[in-house]
């Protein structure tokens, strides 16, 4: 049963990711991305990571993609030809990534360990509590660094947006 769900989600994720870059209409691309986000969330649910699934939808589908759509609609491009001759670069990157994946795959085959014992989802504290504990104990430093980077990005965005007003006053 789990396998059926996994293959369904994986297939849709792969297909919609391709569509995001293949479709000519940017609004359709954004919609393909929306479907992909939902299926990634579905993948999290099959892994019993419900919190991550919900956050995935709230943050990516609910906020970031809406902003993308916002920009795409303002540009009102029906089809943009400028970005459609990147085949050489894309091909090169694709080959490199594929080699990497194949190498990794065979390495993990060589050191094949028994599949991790499936964790009983009912026992112990909930998924949300576990993530909170891991973030604030084991991974406290990376967590704080990430928030610092986000803060810097936020200040940067404010300064960039404010530049205009500053010049006008002077």
């Amino acid at each position, binding site marked *: 049963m789990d396998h059926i769900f996994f293959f369904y989600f994986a297939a849709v994720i792969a297909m919609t990711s391709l569509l995001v870059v293949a479709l000519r209409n940017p*609004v359709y691309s954004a*919609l393909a991305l*929306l479907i992909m986000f939902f299926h990634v969330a579905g993948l999290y649910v099959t892994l019993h990571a*419900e*919190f991550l*699934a*919900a*956050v995935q*939808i*709230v943050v990516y*589908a*609910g*906020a970031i993609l*809406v*902003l993308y*759509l*916002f920009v795409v*609609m*303002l540009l009102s491009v029906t089809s943009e030809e400028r970005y459609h001759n990147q085949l050489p670069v894309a091909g090169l990157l694709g080959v490199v990534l594929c080699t990497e994946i194949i190498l990794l795959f065979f390495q993990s085959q060589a050191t094949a360990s028994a599949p991790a014992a499936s964790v009983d989802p009912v026992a112990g504290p*909930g*998924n*949300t509590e576990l993530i909170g504990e891991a973030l604030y104990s084991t991974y406290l430093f990376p967590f704080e660094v990430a928030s610092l980077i986000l803060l810097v990005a936020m200040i940067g965005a404010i300064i960039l947006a404010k530049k205009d007003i500053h010049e006008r006053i002077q």
Partner: protein
Amino acid sequence: MEIGLRLAVSLAQIAAVMGVVMLTVMVLTLAERKVLGWMQDRMGPMEVGPYGVLQPIADGLKLFFKEDIIPAGANKFLFTLAPILALVPALIGFAVIPFGPSLTIEVFGMQIKPFVISDINIGILYILAFASIGAYGIILGGWSSNSKYSLLGGLRSAAQVISYELNVGLAIVGVILLSGSLSLVKITEAQAGGFWNWFILAMPFPQIFAFVVYVISAVAETNRVPFDLPEAESELVAGFFTEYSGMRFAFFFIAEYANMILVSCVAAALFLGGWNAPYPGTILGYIGLDSLAWMENVVWFAVKVYFFLFLFFWLRATLPRLRYDQLMRFGWKVMLPIALGNIVLTAIAAYFFPR
């Protein structure tokens, strides 16, 4: 066999909840016009049936038989998809709302919770997630209509929903800190035993500020007056659904009212104790009718939800529409700091005085 039975029970529950929601939407369309009428010293609709009580049916029939027009130059696929994208997230959120006490009854050897379709452990996040998806219907509807008014309405809605969704999320955090759970069933149960235990008043830190932020943001998120800029009729004709007619228009309309009911249910469950009565226990329980106590709980939940729905109408009759810059400034510079401050204070209070 068991899966089939479980499926049948779930479908029955879903059908019951959808029926109640749709019925409430019908009641609301009439109630809104009646309440607005009374507040403005009018009678409201009086023509169809006694005192106009059959008006919703007449409205529904009219919308059903209207011609369905897709404007020239519109993106046909997205124009069709947008109303569905608006309606489905509004209805799907009701899956985790507890309408009554969390009893379990046995049907054919299965444990069934009759008053909640699905008690998942991230209930409130689930509602937030799908509420944010509802914005797509509005944005895409505005874009695909190929009309300037619709596009402007859609863009306004995108900015507004993102800004105020943040405040909704942050206002809820205080309640989650106090209850220690994301499940709406557990949050409601944590408020049992009288109105002084409701999270709006509960010690160690009453969530009254979070409650005010939540209610205002909820009004903004449902695009209701005074935050109805996406459909401001005096400037944008009808905003994002200017070009819609017939059933597609009805879908947007139902979605707006279903969203109102949903945010009212969430507000009642989070801040006003959900189905808990404002006194400990239930009166029916005290006089020995324990098996009927659920009725009293369900009635209390309905009373709270209708209080919020009345508030929506009341605001509409009272307040003028905000200007767009006022809306943004209010959201980011007033509501956001209050919500953040509430989280900090609640966290400190909850640390020193654990419940």
